[in-house]
């Protein structure tokens, strides 16, 4: 039972890394809080749902399409909102309120369009029969979701550390002002990071029906709390710390569900408060705070 809990914890940890990654990238680069992150994830889930039920598209195809579309939406959204926000005295605080408003708009529009019923995609789409791992039977949809998450995380790592644009992005994360002074086009770098952040939320959304069972237009806030727990545990502003946060979150969630199931939904909240109060800089601490 313990092995099973830890193993499924690792799998969900990888998935929750993907859930938090985009939020953390946006915060790390722009120092704004995208409180509509959970709602972009929800939109990704609905896109996957309709792509499957209308056209029979495989979630992988849907994920690729969602990534492209979301990045394309993210770029103009950035220029529309963020530069104006960053002129404000307390941009971080105002960003919470602004993106909260955006989250409300997305949730309301989705509810108007599709109603409040729960949507799901049958798990057999991602392979039939359980996967045997260390003598544990795991649903193959979970393993698939975790694998895609791992690929996405690796992709972000390659982007940040192996491309020129990624190097510029890290420069902006370390110091926005100095980056500006060295002639980096901060807005261009930030806009791309914003697009990628939303795109990652979309990919996480495509696999949400499999990992979370079903989705409704109202899941945004819940996802936000989980994503925040993950990225705060794994150091806010450090995209790669998210992996550690995701795994701590996933494993402790599964351990709670196995041994103390009636209190399991308390976990994200308690973890978040506990880490914020004891180590607000995250588990990785200051030394590796910035990418």
């Amino acid at each position, binding site marked *: 039972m313990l092995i099973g809990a830890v193993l499924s914890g690792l799998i969900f940890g990888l998935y929750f890394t993907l859930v938090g990654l985009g939020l953390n990238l946006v915060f790390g680069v722009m120092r704004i809080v995208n409180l509509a992150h959970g709602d972009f994830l929800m939109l990704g889930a609905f896109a996957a749902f309709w792509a499957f039920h209308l056209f029979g598209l495989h979630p992988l195809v849907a994920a690729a399409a969602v990534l492209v579309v979301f990045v394309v939406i993210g770029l103009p959204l950035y220029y529309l909102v963020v530069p104006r926000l960053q002129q404000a005295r307390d941009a971080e*605080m105002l960003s*919470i309120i602004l993106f*909260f408003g*955006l989250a409300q*708009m997305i949730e309301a529009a989705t509810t108007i369009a599709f109603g409040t019923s729960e949507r799901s995609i049958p798990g057999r789409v991602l392979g039939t029969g359980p996967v045997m791992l260390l003598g544990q039977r795991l649903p193959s949809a979970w393993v698939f979701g975790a694998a895609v998450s791992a690929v996405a995380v690796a992709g972000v790592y390659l982007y940040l550390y192996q491309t020129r644009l990624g190097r510029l992005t890290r420069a902006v994360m370390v110091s926005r002002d100095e980056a500006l002074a060295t002639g980096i086009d901060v807005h261009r770098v930030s806009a791309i990071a914003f697009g990628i952040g939303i795109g990652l939320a979309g990919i996480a959304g495509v696999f949400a029906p499999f990992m979370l069972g079903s989705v409704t237009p109202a899941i945004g806030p819940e996802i936000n709390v989980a994503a925040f727990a993950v990225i705060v545990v794994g150091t806010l502003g450090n995209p790669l710390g998210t992996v550690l946060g995701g795994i701590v979150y996933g494993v402790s969630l599964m351990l709670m569900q196995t041994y103390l199931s009636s209190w399991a939904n308390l976990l994200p909240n308690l973890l978040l408060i506990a880490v914020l*109060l004891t180590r*607000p800089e995250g588990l990785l601490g200051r030394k590796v705070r910035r990418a």
Partner: protein
Amino acid sequence: MKLRVGDAVLAAAVVALMAVLPSVYSNELLLFNFVMFLTLSQGLNILYGFTGYLPFGYVGFFGAGAYGFAIAVMNYGAGPLPAMLIAAAAAVILALVLMPLLRLSGAYFAIASLAAAQAVYQVISNPALEQVTKGPYGVSLTGVFAPRLSYYVAVGIMAGTFALVVWLRNSRFGLALQAIREDTVSAGMAGVSVVRFRTVAWLLSALVAGLVGGVFAWHISVFYPDTAFDVGISIFATVFTLFGGATTLTGPLLGVAILYGVYNAIGITVPQYFQLIYGTLIVGLVMFLPNGLVSLLTRRGIRVP
């Protein structure tokens, strides 16, 4: 303290209006909801407007008050007025427990306070505590049901809260709080006791929410944890305050009158359209009018109560 007359007159006028309305308008529940949100947004204004801390989890204190009242009545057979004291105490105790959250700032505080409110909700609604809180099945307090009396108690709490805001706006204490909000270090250097002042504002703000929660439990008398800890309550109070303009008395009043009015006109039948409208309003507000409606006047140099 130099009291500006406008503040006191406005506060007294609204209190008088809400006290008289039940005798000419029969939908008492609607009036009660207005009183509730008028008070809650001013309570939130005490914290957000004067210290800059935005408590997304403000509803946690409201819920603690409601359940403090309910548990006192259900499990200890308390009368409504002693139960109101328990409601206030529950919220203040919760605020004391959550005081370490004040070490966080900005976004961290907002999110941590939301997480704290959710945690309290999950404890209270947990089926394992059914003996004490009735868990997710809700409470029924029909024994103390007194709609008229509880309405006037709510108006009394509203009057007290308005007085508190007027005092903050006209006292050295309120000025010190705003100095802390603007620049903590400078305020500290000028001799303002940053931690103590901030704590007082936090406790006062929680006290208001706890009292409103208690009187809500009394007036409604049958409710569920989902109702008492509905994050929508935090959201409404926040949006109303921001929409009108924080740190003023007028702002939150305007916000409630306009937005909650619109909500009752269209929001109850088609909530998602209302949600769409207020989402759009929030985005537009932050982009174009970050200091609320009253800033249309204040930036022309006109003083608003």
